[in-house]
């Protein structure tokens, strides 16, 4: 029985934080999964350095994982954490700014020694005072020594013992939030099936942590967060990169094609490559290429030969693929290009999120080189937009560029699992009549050419990067080039008939329309909901279709007094909208810190606009 110190909350955000070698990502993931299984809605945010092992104990090496869960709809991982688990002083320093006033800090008191305080550049022996965390509820727990004590009979070396201390923290947090341990135990048993001693020691420490919380309940608060009210169905947890991979698999199955992925590992997109590499059971061909260029060009080859072809990358990789995207535009082959955006330019902030590749996606190629551009908005809807990208590519013979980002790719949320029968059909434009086939003969409505691949007798033809006439013969004729350039653009514009109308969240007209696109959805919808609760006349228009834009876009915009475009760059979507619809005035709120928006800062920007 727990004593009276139970805090009941609608939602709570927890941040696990330690050295990048402390296993905080795993700890956070296991806690999130266990929480989702209990029926809470969740949203997660892994925040880690790009170095695999930055110098131990330094602020630069701090790896964090934040999860927010609750009994209502959760759209963001939370601006601030209610509870911080800090494995060392550096974790306190790195995360002080992410703490909710009055929150709880649980820390490994063994790690708060002079050496570690120095490494984290604290000047005194009171790190909490230095970080202005005096008013917080602090719970020192000797995690390292309790872990050592618990494992003293296991005959393990010191290093192996200390590797389990994350399990102690996890057990303790599970007690505080009333999570059963069975899921986590099961995970440990499966992961280390071949190393029984590792299973036993980790499970022991996990229980030690849980029991410690129970025994020390006089000083450890416990929280009650009831399951969320969500739509009926079967649920699972999914992150954006897995959802993207699975959406592509769904498209392959629906279209009856084999799936080919040509890709080169790059943070934070690599997980799509590994998720699809696991799916040999579903016949996926994954080709880890020698570079980004071979990633896309092998995919173009596979598309020429009749596969659903995909390449996945992040910003710098997209830059390397530019010329090849132009080839796919010219050859008019179906191709899906996924860009999991990260902080740029150049190597930039590899592990951090940003939306600064929009212009690159739209225009970053030589010549007039239009492609369809989509953007996913939550981790789970990466599934749908990857599926939709493939559908558009195959039905319209056009490259489609899907933008996700590090926040979506690594973040996870519960997802009601769709049935394949619920998804729309995909009909690739495979040529049928050899007699009338011409390489660049087009559908009069949607302007797509037909797809004929090697092995189809009677359809032998040549394509390539040079400008062609309708029969597929190389042509330098000036009028032909003008005509084809316009056709390629118009073909992309006509994809608008596959794009649903833009829907506003809130009212159809009013004072302020907040405009955003892609991975910021969770923060945007939370912001607009909170503002509306406060009685503000504010609505949201969130874009998933960038090129072409939904056909009612100007209509929607025209009903609002003010428009503010919020994005994680210096205003790329705002510039694009100004170009496409110059009749409106666009205010901007921009952030390029490698971090997601906070609901608080977004609200401030709207307040300011309402006052002006």
């Amino acid at each position, binding site marked *: 029985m727990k004593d009276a110190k139970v805090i009941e909350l609608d939602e709570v955000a927890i941040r696990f934080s330690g050295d990048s070698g402390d296993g905080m990502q795993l700890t956070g993931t296991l806690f999130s999964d266990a929480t989702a299984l209990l029926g809470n809605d969740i949203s997660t945010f892994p925040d880690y350095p790009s170095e695999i092992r930055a110098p131990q104990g330094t602020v630069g090496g701090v790896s964090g994982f934040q999860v927010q869960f609750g009994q209502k709809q959760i759209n963001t991982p939370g601006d601030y954490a209610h509870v911080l688990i800090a494995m060392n002083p550096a974790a306190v320093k790195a995360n002080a700014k992410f703490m909710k006033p009055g929150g709880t800090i649980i820390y490994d008191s063994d790690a708060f020694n002079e050496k570690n305080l120095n490494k984290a550049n604290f000047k005194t022996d009171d790190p909490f005072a230095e970080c202005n965390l005096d008013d917080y509820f602090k719970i020192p727990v000797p995690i390292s020594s309790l872990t050592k004590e618990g494992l003293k009979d296991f005959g393990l070396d010191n290093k192996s013992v200390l590797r389990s201390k994350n399990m102690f923290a996890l057990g303790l947090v599970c007690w505080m939030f009333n999570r059963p341990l069975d899921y986590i135990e099961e995970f440990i048993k499966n992961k280390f099936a071949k190393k029984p001693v590792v299973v036993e020691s980790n499970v022991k420490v996990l229980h030690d942590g849980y029991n410690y919380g129970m025994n020390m309940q006089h000083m450890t608060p416990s929280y009650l967060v009831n399951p969320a009210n969500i739509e009926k169905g*079967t649920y699972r947890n999914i992150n954006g990169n897995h959802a993207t991979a699975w959406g592509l698999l769904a498209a392959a199955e629906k279209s009856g094609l084999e799936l080919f992925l040509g890709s080169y590992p790059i943070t934070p997109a690599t997980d799509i490559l590994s998720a699809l590499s696991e799916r040999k059971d*579903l016949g996926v061909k994954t080709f880890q290429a*020698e570079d980004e260029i071979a990633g896309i060009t092998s995919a173009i*080859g596979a598309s020429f030969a009749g596969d659903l072809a995909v390449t996945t990358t992040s910003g710098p990789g997209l830059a390397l693929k530019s010329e090849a995207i132009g080839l796919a535009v010219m050859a008019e082959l179906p191709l899906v290009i996924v860009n999991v955006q990260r902080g740029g330019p150049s190597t930039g902030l590899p592990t951090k999120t940003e939306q600064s590749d929009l212009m690159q996606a739209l225009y970053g190629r030589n010549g007039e080189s239009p492609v369809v551009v989509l953007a996913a908005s939550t981790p789970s809807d990466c599934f749908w937009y990857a599926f939709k990208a493939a559908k558009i590519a195959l039905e319209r013979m056009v490259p489609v560029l899907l933008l996700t980002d590090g926040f979506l790719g690594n973040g996870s949320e519960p997802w009601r699992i769709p049935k394949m029968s619920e998804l729309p059909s995909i009909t690739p434009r495979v040529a049928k009549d050899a007699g009338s086939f011409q390489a660049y003969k087009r559908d009069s409505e949607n302007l797509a050419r037909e797809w004929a691949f090697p092995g189809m007798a009677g359809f032998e033809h040549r394509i390539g990067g040079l400008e062609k006439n309708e029969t597929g013969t190389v042509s330098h004729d000036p009028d032909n080039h003008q005509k084809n350039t316009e056709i390629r653009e118009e073909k992309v514009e006509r994809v608008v008939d596959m794009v649903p109308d833009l829907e506003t969240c809130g009212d159809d007209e009013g004072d302020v329309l907040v405009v955003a696109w892609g991975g910021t959805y969770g923060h945007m919808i939370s912001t607009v909901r909170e503002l509306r609760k406060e009685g503000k006349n504010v609505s949201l228009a969130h874009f998933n279709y960038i090129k072409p834009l939904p056909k009612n876009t100007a209509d929607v915009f025209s009903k609002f007094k003010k428009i503010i475009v919020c994005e994680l760059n210096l205003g790329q979507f705002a510039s694009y909208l100004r170009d496409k619809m110059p009749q409106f005035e666009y205010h901007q709120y921009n952030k390029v810190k490698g971090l997601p928006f906070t609901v608080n800062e977004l609200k401030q920007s709207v307040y300011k606009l309402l006052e002006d």
Partner: protein
Amino acid sequence: MTDLKYTIKDFKSENEVRWCPGCGDYAIMNAVQRTMAGMGIPREKFAVISGIGCSSRFPYYMSTFGFHTIHGRAAAVASGVKAANPDLSVWVITGDGDAMAIGGNHFIHLIRRNMDLNLVLFNNRIYGLTKGQYSPTSDRGVKTKTSPFGTVEDPFVPGQLVIGARGTFFARSIDSNIKLSQEVFDGAAKHKGTSVVEVLQNCVIFNNGIHNAITDPNHRADRQLILEHGKPMLFGEENEKGIIFEKGKLKVAKVGENGVTTDDVLVHDANEPDPTIHMALINMQLPDFPVAFGVIRSVSAPVYDVEMAAQIKTVQQTRKIKNVDELLNSGNTWEVTTENGSTGKDCPKFEFK
């Protein structure tokens, strides 16, 4: 499949061939077309993939499926074609600029993977299409438009890269020797794995006569060693000269002189896995040695596209997940059975509902 009766005409397209009059490319294409006609493979199963350069116009002049891609990337595009459909006979047409410079990375990795492709490398040791700049196979000191005072760099020897990348098949031919080209193309087509054929090609405009020292009819017998598997490495007007192995090196010797007999002359073994002798043959150059032609190396090794397909088949034999529905429902899932007003992400309405 052997009852397919093709002639060379069946592989010519209606497009006008626009190489310069006298260009070596005509003869190479002729040999490729003759080879394809004799392979007993239906025409629609050929795919000819090229990069950029004079030679890369090749697909337009063929009646097969063809893809004229971008500079340097033909090997990577062709790898995707073959992975998508291993049933195809895929040919990569490339040049010394396309394959050795901008496409060098794809070239070595293609060979390392041993994808079952046939790569024909037209080596004229110059950039032709951009009108006469030195290439990665141009000799040190050569004066061109971009090296008016001579280059200060050494060339690649394509065969060395093939061996260095663990190549399983390497052959060399000359544009003007259609018979030899056809023989080595035939060998390349039959080989399972990446077959690289370097063809010494003459650019009549920008590098005319670059290979003359080797091809000159008056000296041909002394300057060319046409290798045949299982045959002694003899050359010269009367086959009076041979390659012997002495003190760890190849050496030219006259049979009958200094006690050298025909038994001392090396017998060509293209199938020997150890590449030492193959590398030495590739390195032979004038004036001390004749230049080696024919199939220099042909060894068997696992083939990428075959392995890729086999791995999928093996995994599928014991698979637990047979379709996407099963995948989506695998692992940890949970049921929500009561619906009480509040729904999921409700705005904007999700598109596919």
